[in-house]
């Protein structure tokens, strides 16, 4: 048993330091299945202080650390790179306080995203960022990845909703960043930490903004016979000045999968695209905007337009959309989801390009995307038992990202860089910019112990991982 292991046991208790090989195997992956790595150990800290001690002990022994919430990362953010120890925050899962007057709720990093909104709902509030994995993913992970979601088109992403956080830094210090007023005092360090993917610090307590629930909402589903036509409709809605709460699209293959999934809506199988639009706010405004959208849609070849008739129907449509990734398991052994962003008006040509990449590499691709903000999620379907297909799927994915950058977009909208998009960072950023990133990392973590080998491509450093399982 390593020295550090005994020291850790003294801090968190032996039952919370785990090294059983089968258990480590279960922790060797997250939602990104193209890579895996066995952690050296899994530690479950029970408080900020315990986290601090654990980080100090491991730092003293030069053992790297990876924080994990629910392990739903789609870019390998929670994979134990470089022989690290996983800190699993499932025990810090309490909502500590709901301050209705100041509209702030104080939570542990292991609290499930959807549970925050569930707790706020009786008072007429919700927590706005709603990643599709919200029924399982945690606030700590959302902080690390600056997670978005369908409704972030209108409400903003995680960085706009975390007011303050206690963060354990790689040197073992605990610092409080941000303030409850929500306006940075001095440089916006909190803004830097949110989305740093656990490479600069680990949040152990978070204060979240409570957003008043809209008093009314309308959800509209428009079914199209052509993806291009649906894309033009998206542009028209945004150009008309309507800011829907959410504006989502799925293509034929994606529809096929979700209709076989846990929440079938009954979209006809030959539908080429479904556009899901939600408008929310004050009742009269919602009514007017919904009418505006409906009349805009009349200018396009729409097969069918439906408005959700009940909350149940609305929730079903969203559950159907939000389980799209998992539903890929019904039509393929594995999927690899891309997260490129493009300027909205280039949607039709980008989709054409994805089509030809699909044909060229002989990889089936389903498309699910946040059409409103141009965030694409092509789902590349593959079989992990076929090494040649795995290699083709990686190349196809990379080519899609490169094309997004070419169109003036970026390589990630919300899933993060993680292990997955390290190479593409060089496409997105100049060598000078990457050096600047590296300089920031060194200020926080000179020994490179926090989530090593993620987010920031480091030239000259070898990264050694197991292949796909």
């Amino acid at each position, binding site marked *: 048993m390593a020295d550090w292991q005994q020291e850790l046991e003294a801090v968190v208790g032996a039952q919370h330091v785990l090294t059983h090989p089968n258990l480590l195997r279960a922790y060797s992956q997250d939602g990104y299945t193209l890579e895996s790595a066995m952690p050296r150990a899994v530690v*479950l800290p029970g408080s900020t202080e315990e986290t601090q001690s654990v980080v100090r002990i491991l730092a003293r022994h030069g053992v790297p650390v990876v924080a994990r919430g629910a*392990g739903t990362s789609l870019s390998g953010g929670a994979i134990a790179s470089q022989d690290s120890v996983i800190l699993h925050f499932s025990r810090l899962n309490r909502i500590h306080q709901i301050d209705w007057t100041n509209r702030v709720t104080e939570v542990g990093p292991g609290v499930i995203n959807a549970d925050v909104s569930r707790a706020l709902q009786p008072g007429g509030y919700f927590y706005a960022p709603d990643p599709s994995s919200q029924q399982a993913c945690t606030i700590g992970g959302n902080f690390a990845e600056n997670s978005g979601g369908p409704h972030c088109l209108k409400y903003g992403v995680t960085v706009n909703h975390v007011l303050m956080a206690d963060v354990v830094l790689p040197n073992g210090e605990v610092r409080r960043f941000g303030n409850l007023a929500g306006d940075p005092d001095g440089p916006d360090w909190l803004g830097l930490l949110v989305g740093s993917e656990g490479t600069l610090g680990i949040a152990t307590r978070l204060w979240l903004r409570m957003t008043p629930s809209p008093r009314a909402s309308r959800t509209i589903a428009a079914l199209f016979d052509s993806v291009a036509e649906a894309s033009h409709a998206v542009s028209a809605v945004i150009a008309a000045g309507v800011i829907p709460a959410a504006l989502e699209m799925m293509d034929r293959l994606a529809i096929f999968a979700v209709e076989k999934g*846990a929440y079938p809506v009954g979209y006809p199988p030959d539908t080429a695209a479904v556009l899901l639009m939600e408008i929310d706010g004050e009742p009269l405004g919602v009514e007017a905007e919904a009418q505006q959208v409906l009349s805009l849609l009349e200018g396009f070849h729409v097969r069918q337009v439906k408005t959700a008739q009940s909350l149940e129907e609305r929730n079903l449509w969203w559950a159907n959309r939000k389980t799209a*990734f998992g*539903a890929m398991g019904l039509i393929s*052994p594995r999927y690899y989801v891309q997260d490129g962003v493009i300027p909205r008006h280039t949607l039709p040509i980008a989709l054409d390009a994805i089509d030809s990449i699909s044909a060229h590499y002989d990889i089936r691709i389903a498309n699910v995307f946040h059409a409103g903000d141009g965030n694409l999620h092509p789902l590349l379907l593959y079989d992990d038992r076929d090494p040649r297909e795995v290699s083709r799927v990686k190349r196809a994915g990379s080519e899609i990202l490169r094309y997004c950058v070419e169109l003036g977009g970026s390589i990630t909208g919300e899933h993060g860089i993680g292990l997955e998009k390290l190479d593409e960072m060089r496409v997105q950023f100049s060598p000078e910019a990457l050096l600047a990133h590296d300089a920031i990392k060194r200020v926080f973590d000179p020994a490179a112990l926090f989530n090593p080998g993620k987010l920031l491509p480091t030239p000259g450093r070898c990264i050694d991982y197991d292949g796909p399982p």
Partner: protein
Amino acid sequence: MDTSQCVHCGLCLSACPTYAVTGLEVESPRGRLVLLNEWRQPEALHDPATAQWLDDCLDCRACESVCPAHVPTGHLVEQWRAQDRPTIPRNLTLMRGLGFFVGSTSGLRWFQRLSRWSRRPWGTRVARSVLARLPRTVGDLSHGLPQLSLQLSRETIGSDAPKPHSTVMFFVGCVMDAIYSESNRRTAELLRLAGYAVVTPSEQRCCGALHLHSGESQPVRIWAQENIRRFEESGADKVVVNAAGCGTTLKEYAALFAGEPQWEERARRFEDSVVDVTVLLAESMLPRVSPTGRVVTVHDACHHAHAQKIFREPRQLLARAGYTIHEMANSTQCCGSAGVYNLTHPDMSEALVAEKLASIPDGVTNVAAANPGCLLQIQAAARRSRRNVDVQHPVDLVWQAYHDAGYLPKQEVGTRG
């Protein structure tokens, strides 16, 4: 069925009660699939710790409800239990006792007798000496017992002359038959009030659920064949069941006979005829009682909500009988009963039932639960923690409402504490 359909999205984690209690990936459905996969590797480590993580699965199927890729994790763990029985730590006395008690009508009578004695001062000694080698939770559970009848329900319900298109065979179950015989009698009365002719074959057998969940599939095929024969002879168009756990098993009989076309076909016809009593009564022409102001909260048995997707019907039925429903949080989360799980996994089970009690809204004393395991588990925990809560089968609550409203005749209640 295999584990490869899992794409590792992790959406199941929050649905899994054992993950909520332990916070460990290996106690989540996704983690268990990794363990199952490891288990099959040629050089796998088949140690007690791994077996325990797998065997901790409640088989509540909450993960199957939320899995976008329909991975049948509960079934896969059940299969593993059946194949790897020797490696699972188990209480042999418990499994033998179970086989004896539910295996025959006379076993059931003994079960009823022992349960009745366990509630008397002198009987506690007798019961204890018999139960001494059983897990400690057996004693805890006896606090949850209702007033016990002297007869099995199947001996008192009787059979009506069949009516065309509205004859049902009443599947009386084991625990329902012996412990909740009163609920069974009321079930029959409500079915008759709703216009059905009720046939109750006395030779019907245990559905086999408890054995299947524990990986003991041996006797179940024989029981299933007998139940199928009884149904075919009964002249009924439907098999009505009021225990969520039994209903699920009865609806999965065909899988027991995979590869035997003749029996598979008969089992399929049987399966298709099985209907839960709350579903049948909710669709029936039972009269509407105006709201009485009585408040009830509903605990959804796993094998209602997750395995059979029954959620609305018990509520519709209670509302029609005049009840106001005050929902509890996480009503579909397992109470920790899970077949014989509360006997085999006392610690996990206690953690879960404590959560269940905490989620019963303040001031609500009526809890409806449509499964005998849940009834016993929640009632026992409530009595132990001195919480004033009355856990009843929805049928009992509905029967009471129709009785009070004068729709049902006064009944001689043959119970003895």
